[in-house]
């Protein structure tokens, strides 16, 4: 019917591309992090990275951001998805509005929330209008790390909940209705149906969304720079600083490997935690 080689020919461009620009660079980055210019194996770049005064802060900030943003937006998106599914009219319209942030980049989201939180911004104007404050507050000043953190969490939740929503809504569309009907026949309440049927059936989507979001949350960069400048270092902004300002590609590569290791570890944990038993797949 068709030559045996046809599927391979069709896959060739994509495979070549991924090997050349995905697998190969990752071996390069490991090489860069572990060897000196003369090609000797060394751990000094990791040492330099870990003993730099910003390392622990950047690590802590990144983890705190992931912990503050991801669980919150998973629950929010799950709630929004059930709201959407409960709608009789206007479902598509509401879904369109809720997915608007999907097209907005992290840098743009940072700038949008900068308009709210900056010194002459809308939050200060509102508080002033309400008579709460006399003078504008420097929410994003270096002495207010707490509000910088909060602004970043809000901006990230605002921007990236949309993608989780899209994944969960399309996942819910794949669940056969017979399961819910059966549960109803056996007298399960709405809440029971949600916990016992919908959630377990939604596991593959939850897994996809979790992995995607956790990886991206560890990569958080432009939002942080837009809102906090250098006041709140995170792992990715440190990579950028080492690569771009300090011109030390080796230490930047060491940072990259750390982010990479964390990402892979998280992916494996999520895959295991939200695994679907073989016999239970739809």
């Amino acid at each position, binding site marked *: 019917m068709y030559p045996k080689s046809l599927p391979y020919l069709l896959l060739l461009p994509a495979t070549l591309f991924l090997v050349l620009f995905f697998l190969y660079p990752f071996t*390069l980055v490991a090489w860069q992090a572990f060897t000196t210019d003369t090609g000797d194996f060394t751990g000094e770049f990791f040492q330099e990275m870990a003993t730099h005064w910003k390392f622990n802060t950047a690590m802590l900030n990144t983890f705190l951001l992931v912990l503050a943003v991801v669980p919150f937006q998973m629950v929010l998106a799950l709630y929004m998805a059930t709201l959407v599914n*409960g709608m009789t009219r206007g479902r598509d319209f509401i879904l369109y509005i809720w997915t608007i942030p999907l097209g907005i980049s992290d840098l743009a989201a940072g700038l949008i929330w900068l308009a709210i939180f900056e010194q002459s911004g809308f939050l200060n104007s509102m508080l002033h209008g309400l008579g709460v404050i006399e003078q504008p507050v420097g929410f994003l000043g270096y002495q207010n790390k707490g509000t910088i953190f909060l602004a970043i969490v809000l901006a990230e939740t605002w921007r990236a909940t949309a993608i989780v929503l899209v994944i969960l809504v399309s996942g819910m569309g794949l669940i056969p209705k017979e399961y819910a009907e059966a549960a109803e026949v056996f007298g399960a309440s709405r809440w029971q149906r949600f916990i016992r049927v919908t959630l377990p059936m939604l596991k593959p989507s939850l897994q996809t969304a979790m992995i995607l979001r956790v990886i991206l949350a560890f990569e958080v960069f432009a939002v942080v720079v837009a809102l906090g400048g250098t006041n709140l270092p995170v792992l990715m902004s440190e990579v950028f600083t080492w690569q771009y300002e300090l011109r030390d590609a080796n230490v930047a590569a060491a940072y990259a490997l750390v982010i990479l290791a964390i990402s892979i570890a998280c992916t494996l944990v999520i895959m295991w935690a939200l695994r679907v038993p073989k016999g239970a797949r739809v």
Partner: protein
Amino acid sequence: MSQSTQTAKLMVDGPVHGRGPWHRYVFTGIVVLLCLWVLVPIYLLVVNTLSSPADVNAFPKRLVPDVNTESVRFFLNFAGVGQALWSSVKVATLTMILSILAGAPAGYALSRFDFRGKGSFRVLVLMTRAFPLPLLALPLAVMYIRVGLDDSILGLALVHTTLALPFAVLITYSLFSGIPIELEEAAWTLGCNRLEAFQKVILPLVLPGITASAIFAFVISWNEVFAAAVLTIENRTLPAFLLQGLSVAPLHLKFAGGAVLVLPALIFIFLVRKYLFSMWGIANR
């Protein structure tokens, strides 16, 4: 699509909300609140963009702009902005073309053939999701200097294609899978060869979907900032240009820049909204 969402509606019609009239109000209230949560920040950016530079830096701010294009004009005439916009368009267009050219044939192969190595290829594609891809820019920066691709449109587009390619493969895979093989077979029996059947029967059917995934690739590239900032110096894209100016640029420049960054992305998402959910439905698998 509409049928499958219908089934879900029955199933999840509100574990959280009952059916009484009182519940209806709460339900509507929450939905409206969530819409405001999404829309108000965008509106505030629009207010800042359409205010004069003096108003943007003034305090307190008003919630209605005086519709003044001075900020936007200042931004567009600012040294380097035009060039950055042009670079962004070039990189995104190239990314779009590359990811479809490499992705669509792979999607077709995955949907139509059974062959050894199919599983491994899918793993390779899915693996990209577990890696922070923008970090690829670091080793590539070194490699590009060696091969003469440093600070080039093509070099950046290649990195962006790595970001967009997995989506292109999965989306086209789902598109082709949605078209019954019988249609193609009918064309073969009527005397078309494989290529002709593809051109005359399959291509017209999948073209809108392929356009959607091309647009998606465009947006991915348009929005990307880290790799763009690492890999370009002279040929900065708009996000990289804005990032560089964050610590020094005046507020009205930042906000007008943000608006210019957001606007095309919004239009594109509007165009592909029909495909968003079917795209992700299959990408879960």
